[in-house]
């Protein structure tokens, strides 16, 4: 394994070099273009274009009679562009929605392409063999000439994005504002579409029609979970793409029966799914944890409040309370009840003694504060917003967990350190 690793990354073998460099160049240029289509919420445009290049390739073969890659790419470019125009025209001039127009353009262009391809294949023209590499990709068979083309396209795409970075950013986030400050929105959109089509037309030769969509969408989707800044997102998407490009090439190098393109997409997808779950801030798991943390805070504070309220009634805040007593003040589900009490005990807010619980000094202070905030807020609502006293409880139930010490001080000052809330309950101070 180690030798294979060294052999692969030493890149002595020109074939390996071509495949790796080709995959990386392609992945990066698609990822960068993909970020913009992703942000414009047109992620599936890449899928349409990749299906729509087929008729172009076939037509250009029928017209020129050769497999000159340059001519084929021009044909592909034209029908790829055409599919986007058709899509936009249908959406703008009928009640048909965007998703339907997308599927329509995709399937009809591809159908026409398949029809032409089979006609060519049945025509007995010997030169046609290999046309279908546009359909399925041939990343493992990249040669020097392909690499040159990919490199060129990558440079064009990178240069365009670099030059028009600000304009692209504007038309992605706020096309109306862009229009207002004099950005030629239509022209910029055409330019963006052109480099998208270009990325698709070249990328398709490596990964095939279906997986091309992933090369555009997946790195952008993954990167979006890690950053809110476009520049950082572009860099991250490129890194993810490059990583997948190298991994895909490496896997198909170590196991020759394994196809490069699908593995590139596989690695990309795994990175994306990992990001969906674990990215800090936006990841699903992180969000669940945050939500749980807040739920726990609410539970703990509500429990302490119950202790305090019993204390108010019995005028003894530190006496031991049984579970039944606590549950009488407020309803808790039994699982939560036990968990909350254990957590409070661990943090030193309450003490356990033979199945009953009593407040510690810290617990008493915290419980008192929650009750104080609740009653201060109720008073504030009745006094300043003129809400009826019987309507303020629900709102206070929520806000009591949120108010910061600064806000608390301002409330107290504004209300002039009141003694009673609107329900004539005592507002407790330390």
């Amino acid at each position, binding site marked *: 394994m180690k030798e294979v690793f060294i052999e692969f990354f030493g890149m002595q073998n020109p074939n390996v070099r071509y495949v790796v460099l080709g995959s990386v160049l392609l992945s990066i240029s698609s990822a960068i273009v993909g970020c913009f289509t992703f942000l414009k919420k047109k992620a599936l445009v890449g899928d349409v274009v990749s299906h729509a290049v087929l008729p172009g390739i076939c037509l250009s073969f029928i017209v020129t009679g050769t497999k000159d890659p340059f001519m084929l790419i021009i044909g592909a470019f034209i029908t790829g562009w055409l599919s986007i125009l058709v899509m936009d025209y249908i959406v703008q001039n009928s009640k048909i929605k965007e998703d339907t127009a997308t599927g329509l353009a995709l399937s009809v262009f591809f*159908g026409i392409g398949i029809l032409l391809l089979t006609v060519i294949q049945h025509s007995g023209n010997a030169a046609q063999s290999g046309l279908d590499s546009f359909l399925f990709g041939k990343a493992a068979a990249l040669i020097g000439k392909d690499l040159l083309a990919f490199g060129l396209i990558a440079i064009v795409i990178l240069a365009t994005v670099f030059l028009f970075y600000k304009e692209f950013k504007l038309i992605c986030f706020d096309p109306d504002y862009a229009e207002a400050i004099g950005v030629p929105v239509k022209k910029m959109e055409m330019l963006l579409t052109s480099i998208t089509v270009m990325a698709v037309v070249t990328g398709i030769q490596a990964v095939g029609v279906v997986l091309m969509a992933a090369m555009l969408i997946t790195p952008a989707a993954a990167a979006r979970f890690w950053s809110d800044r476009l520049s950082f997102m572009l860099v991250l998407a490129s890194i993810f793409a490059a990583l997948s490009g190298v991994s895909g090439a490496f896997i198909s190098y170590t196991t020759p029966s394994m196809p490069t393109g699908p593995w590139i997409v596989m690695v990309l997808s795994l990175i994306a799914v990992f990001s969906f779950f674990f990215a800090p801030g936006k990841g699903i798991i992180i969000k669940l944890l945050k939500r749980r943390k807040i739920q726990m805070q609410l539970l703990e504070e509500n429990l302490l409040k119950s202790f305090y309220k019993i204390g108010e009634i019995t005028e003894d805040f530190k006496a031991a309370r049984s579970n039944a007593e606590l549950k009488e003040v407020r309803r808790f589900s039994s699982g939560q009840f036990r968990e909350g009490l254990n957590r409070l005990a661990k943090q030193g807010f309450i003490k356990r003694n033979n199945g009953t619980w009593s407040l510690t000094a810290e617990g008493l202070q915290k419980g008192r504060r929650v009750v104080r905030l609740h009653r201060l807020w109720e008073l504030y609502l009745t006094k300043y917003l003129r809400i009826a006293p019987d309507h303020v409880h629900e709102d206070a139930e929520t806000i009591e967990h949120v108010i910061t010490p600064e806000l608390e001080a301002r409330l107290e000052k504004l209300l002039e350190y009141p003694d009673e809330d609107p329900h004539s309950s005592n507002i407790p101070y330390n």
Partner: protein
Amino acid sequence: MNDLIIIVTGSLVAICCGILGCFLILRKMAMVSDAISHAVLPGIVIAFMLGSDLDSIWMLVGAGLVGVFTTFLIEFFHRQGKLQTDASIGVTFTWLFAIGVIMVSYYAGDAHIDQDCVLYGEIAYVPIDPIITDSGSVLGPKALIVLSIVLLVILAVILPFYKEFFLTSFDPAYAAAIGISATIWHYLLMSLVSITTVASFESVGAILVVAFLIVPPATAYLITTRLHHMIGLSCVFGILAAILGYYIAYWIDGSIAGAMATVAGLNFGFVFGWTQIKKARPVTSPPISQD
């Protein structure tokens, strides 16, 4: 006789897809069907490996499950991860498709799976293999029987619950308010779509399924505002595409599936053009008199 079998098979696909496609379009879920049609690939490969026949009932059941799983993943990334729908669709189906292709490559030595058949053939793409186009052998009555069963299943689900599908398509909020769960009908519809996809790809290929699911209903959508008219019209347009497509393919010696999709597209083009002309020259109604 072969002509007739092919045309009837194509028409059956057209009818199955025409019915389901209308609901998909109204729910703005056209691209989800595209995703499902690609995502069933790993399911098909697994079923192959378990030794089940392409036409077996288990294949259809498995397809239904894969379809539900795909839909679930798309929804999950969208709802829980707050990923925009289009990206969620794109990421999900390409991932599942890549898994399918990798599985095919891995089991290439296995006698049950032929990479050309699965990848280059009808499953992943449209039948570009000439064996299929000289008909009979593949478009045999077996596909006909499977598709008839699928059509019966679709009718058996849609007809009794037409109201539920209708309401959840047009006004999910109202449907929820009167106690119809949008989720159940959503997933049911998606499993029907995947069953249809698997039953049809053998004869027409994944992309043509998508073409039949989207293009005839979209054509019908242009000229009617009533759901049952739309369903009827899309079946008619679909059958038309199947018949004309077959003869065009026969005439120019090309892929039948490709020709059917092309005709469906042309058909849409004509209707679209017609509605545009009608819109440009509105029928002048007599002026309303003032007194």
